């Protein structure tokens, strides 16, 4: 094996890594935002809303991410075209981003829901008793506490998401893995590039999960 050819390819690999990181961060932000709304819907007294959110979660949790990515890749531009009636260009990355956000939202929803439920009923009663409305009670009292409690789980899920972004390979987005593969292929050293990509993924997610474990220990004392 000869890893020397990786060095000239590093700049374009960095570009790929940037795509991966961008995708991860935006999907986490979007996923948590949508997931939180879903969690609130699942916990709401309105049973229609709760059931709809429940169905959403069950639905996305029972189909493979790869299928969602592929499907959305073809579907999102169509849908957006139909809905808005215009022909604004929807990049492949945008399609994937939407797929990730909607898919991960189902997983984040369950984490957020557990987080909210772990905050006692007494806290929301106290907030109401002080005259706050539902929105204020959630925003000022329940969610800040819930998010603190579920931080480790959210981060863990984000690390999984980071790894899962490599599935955009299926639709040919030049993320880190796909760049490495394509570079390795054109140079005729696919094995070296593959191992290198694996190593980088490992280093990033291993150090991230080590950090999360530490954070977890710190929070639990």
């Amino acid at each position, binding site marked *: 094996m000869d890893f020397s050819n990786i060095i000239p390819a590093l700049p374009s690999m960095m570009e790929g890594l940037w795509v991966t990181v961008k995708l991860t961060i935006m999907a986490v932000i979007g996923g948590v935002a949508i997931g939180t709304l879903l969690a609130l819907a699942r916990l709401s007294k309105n049973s229609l809303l709760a059931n709809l959110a429940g169905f959403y979660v069950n639905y996305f949790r029972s189909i493979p991410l790869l299928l969602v990515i592929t499907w959305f890749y073809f579907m999102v531009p*169509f849908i957006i*075209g139909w809905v808005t009636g215009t*022909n*604004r260009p*929807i990049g492949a990355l945008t399609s994937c981003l939407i797929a990730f956000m909607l898919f991960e939202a189902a997983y984040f929803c369950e984490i957020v829901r557990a987080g909210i439920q772990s905050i006692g009923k007494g806290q929301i009663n106290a907030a109401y008793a002080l005259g706050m409305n539902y929105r204020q009670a959630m925003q000022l009292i329940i969610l800040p506490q819930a998010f603190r409690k579920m931080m480790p789980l959210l981060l863990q899920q984000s690390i999984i998401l980071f790894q899962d972004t490599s599935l955009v390979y299926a639709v040919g987005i030049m993320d880190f893995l796909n760049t490495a593969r394509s570079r390795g292929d054109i140079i005729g050293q696919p094995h070296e590039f593959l191992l290198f990509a694996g190593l980088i993924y490992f280093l990033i997610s291993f150090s991230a999960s080590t950090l999360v474990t530490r954070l977890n220990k710190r929070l639990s004392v």
Partner: protein
Amino acid sequence: QELSGTLKKIKDSGVIVLGHRDSSIPFSYLANDSKPIGYSADLSSKIVDAIKQELKMPNLTVRYNLVTSQTRIPLVQNGTVDFECGSTTNNLERQKQVAFSLGIFEIGTRLLVRKDSPYKDFADLAGKNVVTTAGTTSERILKKMNDEKKMGMNIISAKDHGESFLMLESGRAVAFMMDDALLAGEMAKAKKPSDWAIVGKSQSNEIYGCMMRKDDPAFKKVVDNALASTFKSGEVNTIYKRWFLSPVPPKGLNLNFPMSDELKQLIANPTDKSAEQM
């Protein structure tokens, strides 16, 4: 006059999205950075220039979107890419879904095998592992042949040409069926190009075209005109020479693939018909 369809979309958004390939050597592929190069890539820049002129937008942003044999048609249809110039065959079935520009190349579908292997034609492949790329015309031809002639081949459908060649090179398949020009491109990339040979009787003659959305005559006209003038001015010969008769990245190997009479014919009398229609 009022703009419509793709031209309007490009004008409104200030962006044009080109579909490209990552391992269609030497038509459209990635060598050193994330910008595609190749024969078709050069032709698409001609087209982009023409669009810039047509819309009077010299600073039009060009975005590239990687497509595969399997994804290219839906992506043209759903608007993710505005047009695709790679190694796509114009045929009747595809014409139902997308529109094609004037033909830009002509190929035959053949086999790539190890030079010292006993496999010289399709008939030798009965019971063997044969690779081709998913979503290509070759895949359909091969599957049909296998079924009709009861050849008992194991057909591997790889994701792109690079992967197909990897299958061949690593010994998982004894032959790789694909367009002859693309096979020559894969050879140029191989560790030792002289180990490989393109063999077999061509199973179909196909004309490549650039794909765009159907029912958009204004856009098609700009694309066709751009190609036609490149053909007429003879500039296409320079481009051809650059990619087929000179060393090309990444290895700096020369394909030595002289222009066929059919292609000369096509350039002399440009048409957007498929090979079946001629």
